[in-house]
């Protein structure tokens, strides 16, 4: 098999896996967000889960050609970044609204890429 063909085949397999996994990732973000916004995230663990999913989408989305997905995730990332917002700090109403709006945008983008998500 020549390198170009091998690359194309592997690329398609990785792309399909990335798109398929969006279903599970959106669900995980939804669960984490529910805990964050309902005040059931005392240790900041759910916010951390949310941050890592968003950070991961920010990096990997554009790698697979989904620039808009990365762009939305990049705007959301600093609002959840534990280096900027300590886990023990309670998020204000305005912060929660901004995060929710961007999560909705991110969710819509995920759904556009994979309608099953």
């Amino acid at each position, binding site marked *: 098999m020549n390198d170009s063909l091998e690359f194309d085949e592997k*690329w398609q397999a990785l792309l399909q896996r990335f798109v398929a996994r969006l279903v599970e990732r959106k669900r995980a973000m939804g669960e984490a967000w529910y805990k964050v916004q309902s005040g059931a995230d005392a240790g900041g663990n759910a916010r951390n889960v949310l941050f890592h999913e968003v950070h991961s989408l920010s990096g990997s989305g554009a790698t697979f050609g989904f620039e808009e997905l990365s762009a939305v995730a990049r705007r959301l990332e600093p609002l959840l970044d534990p280096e900027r917002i300590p886990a023990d700090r309670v998020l204000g109403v305005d912060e929660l609204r901004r995060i929710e709006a961007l999560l909705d945008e991110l969710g819509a983008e995920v759904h556009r890429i994979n309608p099953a998500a």
Partner: protein
Amino acid sequence: MKLERVLYVEDDPDIREVARMSLEVVGGLNVCCCASGAEAIERADAYDPQLIVLDVMMPEMDGPATLSALRASSSRLVHVPVVFVTAKVQPNEVAEFLALGVTDVVAKPFDPMTLPDSLRAIWARFSCELIKPGRAP
């Protein structure tokens, strides 16, 4: 000397696989992929990399922490060039990374078709610097 062995540390499984495919299939390089700084520290000395590539933002041990732990873990890793892969590529951010002893920074997202050439260019530049008179190894 030719660049052959690259240690690549990236926590995101999708990006890790893209990097592996890029470096192996497109670049014809031998790659040791690690999912965390801890795994890199465990495997690096035996693998004896010529170049180390680190994602900056990783849970538990980030790129800078992994860099200093790798340097401290083995005397033969002290002078191995390290490249950071990150979306943080503003001039002040890059300057901070270079101040840590990083050889260069590659912007994320990277193009899998050109990543091997970018790393080879960094490697070639580093090798040229090494053979300049008066430069410590």
